[in-house]
């Protein structure tokens, strides 16, 4: 698939900045950001990104709930979602995949390898 617009969702500004710097420096994708699940749904509705990098633990609405909302909406149900999480136990990762995510990236991640990591899940 061709990625033109990617949405990065994380409540931690440091993580957002690292992921954004990596993607903007290494790809020509347009980067959108959001800090909570609720804000992510708003950005998705108005900007329709090609792919979403979604944190799991966030205030207001967590990543799993946000994914559920996206899946329930016919307009957003096909947007691939990749979780980015500090929950690294096998059963947690398996649960995220079962929930419908295309992939899971564990923190800490290597920002220099991030674009390739994302591509590996959607190509």
């Amino acid at each position: 698939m061709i990625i033109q617009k990617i949405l990065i969702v994380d409540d931690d500004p440091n993580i957002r900045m690292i992921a954004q710097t990596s993607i903007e420096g290494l790809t020509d994708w347009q980067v959108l950001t959001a800090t909570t699940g609720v804000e992510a749904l708003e950005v998705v509705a108005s900007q329709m990104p090609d792919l979403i990098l979604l944190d799991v633990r966030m205030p207001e609405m967590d990543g799993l709930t946000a994914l559920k909302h996206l899946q329930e909406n016919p307009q957003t149900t096909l947007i691939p979602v990749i979780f980015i999480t500090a929950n690294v136990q096998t059963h947690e990762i398996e649960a995220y995949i079962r929930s419908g995510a295309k992939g899971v990236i564990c923190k800490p991640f290597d920002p220099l390898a991030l674009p390739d990591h994302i591509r590996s899940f959607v190509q």
Partner: protein
Amino acid sequence: MNQAAPATQILIVEDSPTQAYNLKITLESESFQVKVCNSGEEALKFLAEESIDLILTDIIMPGISGYDLCRAIKSDTRIRDIPVILLTTLREEQDIIQGIECGADNFINKPYDPQYLLARIYQVLNVSKRRLSKSGNVEVELMGRSLSVNQNTAQVLDFLVSSFEEYIRSKKLEDLPAEAIDSTSGLAQKAFELSRSQSELRRQTLILQSILTSMVEAVIVADERGNLITLNKAARDIFCNGKQPRSINDLEKLYQADQVTPLPDDKQPYNSAMSGETMDGIELFLPGSGNRLDYWLSCNVSVLKDELGLNKGAVIVFRDVTARKQLEQQVRHFYSMITHELRTPLTAIKGSLRLIEGGLAGDISNKAKDLVTMAVTESDRLIALINDILDITKIESGRLEINVSDLDPTELVRHTVNNMQSLADSASIKIITELNTNGTKVVGDRSRILQVLTNLLGNALKFSPTNSTILIRTLPADSNRLRFEIVDQGPGIAADKLNLLFKPFQQISSTSSHSIGGTGLGLHTCQLLIERQGGAIGVESEIGKGSNFWFELPLAII
């Protein structure tokens, strides 16, 4: 020998509770109604208010003696007709004289045969009915002494006849053939043993009660209808909660380990026991209520059977494991804390450093680049340390997830080598493999075996000199196991250090003083992981001859 009318009332006056109890049991077995007074004074008070058909009294008691008691009874017109039997060891003439003088109707030697005692009682009861209450002075001679006794003649006669009878009995015993004596003394011995076994039973009951009271485990015993027979102190502390339960159904229901699902009725401990199931220390939850806090209880049950093997109830034993459960929750909390609170800042630190190192934050000097590279390496080490600690915490608390499947050893080794090839190339180290597995597979958790292989190969790369070779090979360990070996041409390890290698934080530098990066937990983690998968791990090494780190895993059954 149930000759007595059920209403016949007998008063026992005896200061020894044990003797009084034994006597009471004997009399009650004949349907007598029995009262017990522990002293002569108490007996007199009792007799002033209650009517009694016969009195059995001990002689030597604190306060007034049996003689004095008898004397007081016989001088009281309201009660003088009640027959009194002295329980004594009448042996001396003085005893007989005192017995006659105090007006006793009969006497029985201690220790007595229960049947003989009962016969005497019936005899006295019968005699007292027909005896005329006629008194007057009687002159008697005993052992050369003349006695004037102001008592009922018939009473004196009865008393003397009974003492004569005692004499004949003792005489007969002396004259009897040996086997007859054996049989008589056997009977006495039996009575004595019965009395002994009764007191032993009471002693055992007291011991059992003390044990139950002092136990930290809660013990509940209920009969086959669910009526509670025993709740020891620990059980009352947990279950009573200010109430007085009578039935097993009055006790609160237990919950499953998820703390929200009630245990089904047929799985509650009492019902499990009654249906013959065991619980084997299953841990159940009892939610707090009223003043009581939450409890975690480890439960064991067994069924009470009678001599025919029928279920007559259940014994339930609970061990309070609340403290351990709470500690486990704290460990889980600690785990969660490490996962998030350390991973998140490390993601920012390592991420920033990598972005600078990769030039995405603009150009920097070569010196700065070296420093950043060093910082990246060290942050990687910190991440590895956290991962190792997490693994060890999980393994040691039994929470490590192991997903076993049949695995191709060749693929495992190739995958590891591929991942580390660039590291080997940059250090100019050659990795060669000898994998002759003939299609055999091993059983284990793929990601955990890869973790061990990566760790061992990483160690070999760290300690190998430039232009050396590392050999990875597989070979049969025995008919059930496959052995993986990682053989390096590094400096080797001294024999006295080998046993330290797999202990936590025991990283050793074999030849030089420089520190080689590592967490000091890697080999310990490898050992725990391999052993958790039913395998073994070890090392063979010699200074100057390199090292051979090996591990073995069970072969898959084809």
